Structure formats: structure tokens, C-alpha cells
């Protein structure tokens, strides 16, 4: 796998997320490449949805956003008012977003050397947490923006 391959795969994921948010929530997002892989600390609560992808080479993907952003996204997706969403709904919703993205990309990569199997997505959350991994992993990330909302997607081959 080359840097170019992982960038292309990251684009598949972000394109998938763009479609999901457009179809299910009516949001239009734009995205830009980002340099910083390790997630930065934040004073605001963050929810991060994650999934391990099993392939010839395993990968881990994550999608992180502030809790308020998650509430807005999930509210538009479900038609439930943000204030009526429970915390568990937000964690489930962000994990489901990861699941939908991964399912879409799985189909796109099905006849390539990067084909993978899905695993169960899960979410973690809190403030001031940082995800750090070994140096020299093949990894990349994207910042996605929809209005005031910021979402970060990361992928690393492990």
C-alpha cells in the first residue's frame, strides 16, 4: 500500500460520509486534508465512533465530533429533537455513521486488494482525551465542515 492508496481510500470514506449526511440529514459538507493525525484535546465533550476493518492489512477508522455536533447530526437523521436525544442515542448514532460509511466503502473496495470485512462499531467519548498510536503507521485524516460543525475522519493501517 502506498500513501496515494490510503489517500484515495480516505477520500472514499469522506465521500461516503458526504452522501450519508446529504441523504439522511440534508447537510452539505466540504472536506480538506489535514496533517495532524493524533486527535487533539478539547475542552468540549467529544464523541468518537470507531471500527476495526479486517483485511489483508487491518485498519482502524474513526469519526470524531463535538457532542453538540453529534446531537445536531443525529437529530436531523432521526427526526428527533436534539434536546430529546439521550446520550446513548448520540453514541449509537455516531457508531452507526461509521458503520454506514464502512459498509459503503467495503462494497467499493470489494474487488481490490484492499477489500475488508466489517466489525462492530463502537463509540468512546469525553473531554480532553487523545488517541495516540505508534509512529510510522500508514495513516491519514480529513477535516469535514458543514456550517459551524466540524467532523474529523481518521484512518490508519495497523
Amino acid at each position, binding site marked *: 500500500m502506498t500513501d496515494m492508496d490510503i489517500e484515495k481510500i480516505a477520500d472514499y470514506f469522506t465521500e461516503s460520509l458526504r452522501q450519508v449526511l446529504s441523504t439522511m440529514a440534508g447537510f452539505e459538507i466540504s472536506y480538506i486534508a489535514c496533517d495532524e493525525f493524533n486527535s487533539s484535546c478539547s475542552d468540549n465533550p467529544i464523541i468518537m465512533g470507531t471500527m476495526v476493518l479486517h483485511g489483508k492489512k487491518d485498519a482502524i477508522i474513526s469519526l470524531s465530533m463535538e457532542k453538540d455536533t453529534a446531537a445536531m447530526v443525529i437529530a436531523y437523521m432521526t427526526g428527533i429533537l436534539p434536546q430529546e436525544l439521550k446520550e446513548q442515542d448520540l453514541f449509537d448514532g455516531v457508531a452507526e455513521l461509521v458503520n454506514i460509511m464502512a*459498509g*459503503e466503502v*467495503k462494497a467499493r473496495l470489494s474487488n481490490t486488494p484492499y477489500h475488508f470485512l466489517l466489525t462492530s462499531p463502537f463509540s468512546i467519548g469525553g473531554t480532553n482525551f487523545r488517541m495516540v498510536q505508534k509512529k510510522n503507521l500508514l495513516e491519514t485524516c480529513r477535516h469535514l465542515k458543514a456550517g459551524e460543525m466540524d467532523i474529523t475522519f481518521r484512518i490508519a493501517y495497523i
Partner: protein
Amino acid sequence: MLDGELLEASDGIEALDLLEEEYKRVDLILLDWNMPRLDGMEVLKRLKADRRFRSIPVMMVTTESERENIVRAIQHGAVHYLVKPFTIEELIKRIMESLGKGGYEHD
């Protein structure tokens, strides 16, 4: 307008346990594929192998969009296969079709 009661299960085993108790009042099963403990395809096979459950229509609602998976699910008795992402309108339309009803009015 869609009216009804929703029974939820978080994985395949829980879904089968729930059906043991509630199957007489279940009109439609929405079944995900990628679930912990027991995946949706295995649940579908078990549903269709059990004469108490086999007449309940099953609609797969999943991210698994590869053609071979869609074919497998239909071959094993799913009446519909809805790939995520979808709009609420699409979901309601498919639910109505699966229940054998025509159109619907969305309020």
C-alpha cells in the same frame, strides 16, 4: 402516517429471544446484517427455519450493499433489502410494501 409499536433488540440473540415471547404480535422484522453475537443472515436463516416465525416478513436494513449479499438475503426469504443510507420516506415506503400495503401519507 405510520403507526405501530417498535420492539428493539441490540443483537441477533436478543432478537430471537424477544421473538420467542412476542412473535404473535409482530407484523414485520427490520433486520440489520452487521450485529454482535449473531449476524443478520444467521438470524434470517433461523427465522425461516422456524414455522412459528417464517410467515413474518423480514426486511434487511443494512450497510452491506454488495450484490452477492443482497441475492443471498432474498434467497433466504427477505422480502426487501434496504441499503443505508436512505431517507425516512424510502424507509416508510418499503415498510408499507413489506406489510402488503400500497402508498402512505407522510405528515
